[in-house]
């Protein structure tokens, strides 16, 4: 562990990953993403109303270097859930389409509720229309 003792950046990244249930390392900020892949990943999390911590890797090249050393993943963005690397933009997009992301985030119930609400919506309208 002598390596980590002399590597405060790596320590900071590892604590951030373990302390935040959902954390996204990205280029730019959720408000102003600096890359299309980061933007797409943020948009998916926001569409699910999923709160997440975000780290902008651009201000210091050492963040990206240490992050990739920790995760073994070379590209940005990188999404972690419960301390585990989920993947980059491609994987997040695929898992969102398949519903696996919602499941991983524990949003299954919420999703079902939304679907039910949507399905239920036309019914009262139809009744009104009949009246």
């Amino acid at each position, binding site marked *: 562990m002598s390596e980590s003792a002399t590597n405060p950046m790596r320590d900071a990244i590892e604590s951030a990953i373990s302390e935040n249930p959902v954390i996204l390392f990205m280029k730019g900020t959720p408000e102003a993403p600096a890359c299309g*892949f980061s933007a797409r990943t943020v948009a998916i999390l926001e569409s699910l109303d999923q709160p997440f911590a975000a780290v902008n890797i651009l201000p210091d090249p050492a963040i990206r270097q240490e992050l990739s050393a920790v995760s073994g*993943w*070379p*590209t*940005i963005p990188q999404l972690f859930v419960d301390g585990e690397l*989920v*993947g980059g933009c491609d*994987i997040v997009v*695929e*898992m969102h389409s398949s519903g696996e992301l919602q499941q991983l985030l524990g949003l299954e119930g919420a999703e079902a509720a939304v679907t039910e609400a949507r399905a239920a919506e036309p019914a009262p309208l139809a009744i009104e229309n009949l009246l």
Partner: protein
Amino acid sequence: MSVSPEELKQRIESGIPGTSANVTGDGAHFEAIVAGPAFAGLSRIAQHKLIYDVFGTELGDRIHALSIKINPTETA
């Protein structure tokens, strides 16, 4: 130094035996659709890492962005 989709295709196919790749791109941003028995049974993370490993530090540098879609072959 510009990178061609053809170069990426050949490197994926020779780097991961039994794989076929279809790569499109503009010299900086690429999309690869890759299929092969090497990906079967692996997690998405492990599948993408197989491809990342072919290019190493060139990713994000010489190859600005590589989007990956995997079609694992059911049987070899």
